């Protein structure tokens, strides 16, 4: 599904503040894998996700998605395969547009945005039904601007927006880091359900080791821009939470 070969990313090359964010990363992620990425701050997790999404291009190396070489394909063209939830709840939604308008755009992620009015009663009803499934009482606030919602509500909606159009891959960059524990729990439950229901190939970055332990079927530990540990489903299921804490000591 996703294949990274010899990916290196250097920021500010040749300058005093040169950083090698990724160094010769090789990864093969199969269809339906739910990969959890952990690592200290600055270990290159976000950069890895950005390179998969096309928000950054690698300094060296190549990326294939579905066997297609996409190393230099820009983000807005790769979005036909993948949906994304950002660490910052503001990142994935347009705050001044209504919930409905945000969902309309999400429903057109893989297709052209044409000069026709696409928000009709049928569309409204389908969004209302989807949002009602979250059980957050947001289904009656469709015309409210996205910016009037809390971070947790926005992250849950961003997650839901990823299911408005076909997607194969879901990229989650610390989706709950900015949330209180209760909202974080709701968002993670919603994510887990969507990933299972749609059989999505997922990359999930988290600083919460409990979540890392609890979710996913593959665990990657990044240290200083390299893959230090890569545990498959079996190894991950045998891993004890305490052992994980020890990685970070």
């Amino acid at each position, binding site marked *: 599904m996703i294949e990274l070969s010899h990916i290196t990313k250097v920021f500010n090359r040749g300058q005093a503040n040169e950083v090698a964010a990724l160094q010769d990363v090789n990864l093969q992620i199969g269809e339906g894998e739910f990969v959890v990425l952990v690592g200290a701050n600055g270990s290159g997790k976000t950069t890895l996700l950005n390179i998969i999404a096309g928000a950054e291009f690698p300094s060296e190396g190549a990326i294939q998605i579905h066997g297609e070489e996409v190393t230099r394909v820009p983000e807005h063209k790769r979005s036909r395969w993948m949906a994304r939830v950002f660490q910052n709840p503001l990142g994935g939604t347009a705050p001044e547009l209504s919930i409905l308008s945000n969902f309309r*755009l999400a429903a057109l992620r893989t297709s052209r945005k044409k000069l026709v009015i696409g928000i009709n009663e049928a569309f409204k009803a389908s969004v209302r039904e989807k949002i009602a499934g979250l059980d957050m009482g947001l289904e009656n606030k469709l015309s409210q601007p996205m910016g009037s919602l809390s971070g947790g509500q926005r992250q849950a909606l961003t997650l839901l927006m990823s299911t408005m159009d076909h997607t194969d891959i879901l990229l989650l960059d610390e989706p709950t880091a900015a949330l209180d524990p209760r909202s974080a729990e709701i968002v993670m439950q919603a994510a887990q359900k969507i990933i299972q229901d749609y059989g999505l190939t997922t990359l999930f970055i988290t600083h919460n080791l409990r979540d890392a332990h609890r979710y996913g079927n593959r665990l990657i530990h990044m240290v200083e821009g390299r893959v230090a540990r890569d545990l498959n489903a079996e190894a991950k299921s045998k891993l004890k939470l305490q052992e994980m804490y020890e990685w970070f000591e």
Partner: protein
Amino acid sequence: MEFYLSALVLGLCLSSMALGIFITMKIFRIPDITTDGSYTLGAAVTAVLLTRQWPLAAIIPVTMIAGALAGILTGLVHTRLKIDALLAGILVMTGLYSVNLNVLGRSNIPLLEVQTIFNALSIFEKPLHNELWVGLLFLGLISGLLAYMLRTDFGIAMRATGNSESMTRALGINPDAMKITGLAIANVLTALSGFLVAQYQNFTDINMGIGIVLVGLGSVLIGDALINWLGIKIIWVQLLFIMGGSILFQMMLAVALSLGVNPSLLKLITAVFVLAIVGIPRLMARRE
């Protein structure tokens, strides 16, 4: 009365430009000052074609294409060369001055002997009333089309681009292409203001665009202040308020003139008005 009615029609003519500035400034959050050039460009194209007896039905699309090209140029300089939007606008605006001079062939063209769009109606006795209705109908059509466009899927994508670029890219929208399109639309609207004002004033002058961006800016700021104050969310009502801002702005200038301000001070008065619109709320905020 005539005097204020005339200012109202002028405000209507300029409200097309205000809508353009609303798109760049409020929807895309790009400060575009190609305006000075594309406004005169629209007026110059109109004057030249009118004196050659072209029909209005042909002049309008040519004016729009001219405005669109100006906007696309600024958009390309801004997005492709990663040059600051303000500088990109200044570059294109300055270049357009020479283009406009060459289009006109001299520094001004009077439009006294030609049939203009404002002669199109002859329902009322007073010419000014007919002109008012021409203005209302024309702007009604423009703002109606714009309001429709902003409600379409494409329009939502446009509005999202200025709001959250990371989101738009993640949803398959090319923000650069959107910005270029937005600048094109804005400058089409500005060129149409040039088209209208040239015919309303019965002349085109190479210097008529100098500082006109400030008039548009002031109009948008007035309209936007009212929109925020009243909490208006519906996009077509917002457009109406922006147009109202343009009319109010011209009324303010008319009042200043009727109080005996020398017309040679008009640009200074414009600058002071815009300064007041921007500055007074800040002073009040500081006091609180």
